[in-house]
């Protein structure tokens, strides 16, 4: 038998091509003749196979949900700076609406838009929500419309809608397709008054979130899917919005 027995370290180096030419040659010569070292070498080679054969650990569902929540929170925190100011202004508008007060805020130096307070003769203070007056779906095909692409989720829908209402500030009216108008009437009633229509996502599916104000029911948010129409509601979720 040629050469000395070799240990795992030398054999591992040989396998990775880390040995110099001369020692590599003599180790190989020894291996040809030594059953004990062949056994050891086989042990070593099986390590990689055993590691490769270990089943992939499945991602726990709780962790998947936790990662989603963490990303959502991060997305909110990274929201544009303008939001804080907009939120403060909107809060003040709501205070003034309830107090039926008028035009200029002193101290903070923020002028409250008359337009936001101009809610029409039949609308009481309660109908002025998030600094805007709801638009009756029966009288117009132009509703407050945004495409926020927010990823709404069932558990957080109310909070996300509230956030969206605060963030949107004054929302320009956009022409809403007939199908969507029919959808709003179908899920919220023909006399519904719309605060916001948001093209976004709900639990991973494309969805439209419709926020309506009703004097008896308060404010409600509906998340509907792409099939929502006069015939079919395709309703994912409904939640009341506090405030």
């Amino acid at each position, binding site marked *: 038998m040629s050469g000395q027995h070799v*240990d*795992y*370290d030398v*054999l*591992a*180096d*040989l*396998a*990775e*091509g*880390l040995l110099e030419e001369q020692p*590599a040659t003599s180790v*190989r010569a020894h*291996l*040809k003749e030594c059953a004990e*070292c*062949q056994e*050891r*070498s*086989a*042990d*070593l*080679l*099986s*390590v*990689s*196979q*055993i*590691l*490769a*054969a*270990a*089943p*992939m*650990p*499945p*991602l*726990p569902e709780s*962790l*998947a949900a*936790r*990662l*989603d929540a*963490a*990303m959502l929170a*991060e*997305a909110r925190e990274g929201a544009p700076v303008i939001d804080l100011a907009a939120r403060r202004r909107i809060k003040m508008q709501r205070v003034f609406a309830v107090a039926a007060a008028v035009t200029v805020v002193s101290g903070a130096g923020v002028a409250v838009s008359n337009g936001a307070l101009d809610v029409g003769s039949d609308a009481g203070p309660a109908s002025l929500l998030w600094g805007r007056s709801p638009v009756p779906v029966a009288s117009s095909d132009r509703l407050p419309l945004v*495409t926020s*692409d*927010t*990823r709404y989720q069932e558990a957080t829908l109310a909070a996300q809608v509230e956030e969206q209402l605060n963030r949107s500030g004054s929302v320009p009216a956009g022409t809403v397709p007939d199908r969507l108008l029919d959808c709003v009437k179908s899920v919220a009633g023909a006399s519904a008054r719309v605060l916001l229509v948001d*093209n976004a*996502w709900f639990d991973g599916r*494309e*969805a*439209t979130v419709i926020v309506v104000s009703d004097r008896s029911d308060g404010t409600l948010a509906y998340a509907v899917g*792409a099939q929502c129409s006069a015939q079919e509601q395709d309703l994912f979720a409904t939640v009341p919005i506090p405030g």
Partner: protein
Amino acid sequence: MPLFGNKQVETLPDKELLAKHAQGDPRAFSELVNRHRDRMWAVALRTIGDQEEAADALQDAFLSAYRAAGKFRGESAVTTWLHRIVVNACLDRLRRRTARPTVAFPDDDVLDSVAPKGPDPTSAHELSLDVADALQRIPYEQRAALVLVDMMGYSVEDAARVLEVPPGTIKSRCARGRARLAPLLGHLRNRTGGSVVGPSNDSQVRAVPRQAGPSVLEEGGSAS
């Protein structure tokens, strides 16, 4: 089906997703996370060895990636970049752990005395428990290299890019790690279904056949 002109993100390649995220598209990063979190979880859990710590590390890593996305310059594949962030988050935790005086790594004598001698394992569950247990008994830098190369199937070059060390260092860490694992995993030999390769007369002795074709860490496109 898009409602009003929303583009589908599911079919975009990783690099475009990252660019969209940097431009403020709220769906892009979620899609990136969904696409890679299973593999990243496997890397984190195997490297750290503890479910809770691995979960924390993975969350830290994805948050770091979320914030650092604007700095990604496209010099590597997005997956390489993500792996680097995940592995570094794990190694940071392991370094802090070993710096704590109360939790020391057992030395070789202790390892020998507690090496598995019990009844032969039969189920895949026991197999993976034994493997996870043995992995925790080798130095974490060797473990990180073996997780990438032997367990996840990446090439030495890809692992070197992830860990930001020369390929020779990866080879050496893998060799040291395998030498330490050999006596710990010997009882599992011939139980993994595959035939065990005997010593070869070839000059090219490969511990595990590398995957042919494109590298695993290449840019991911649609769902794979």
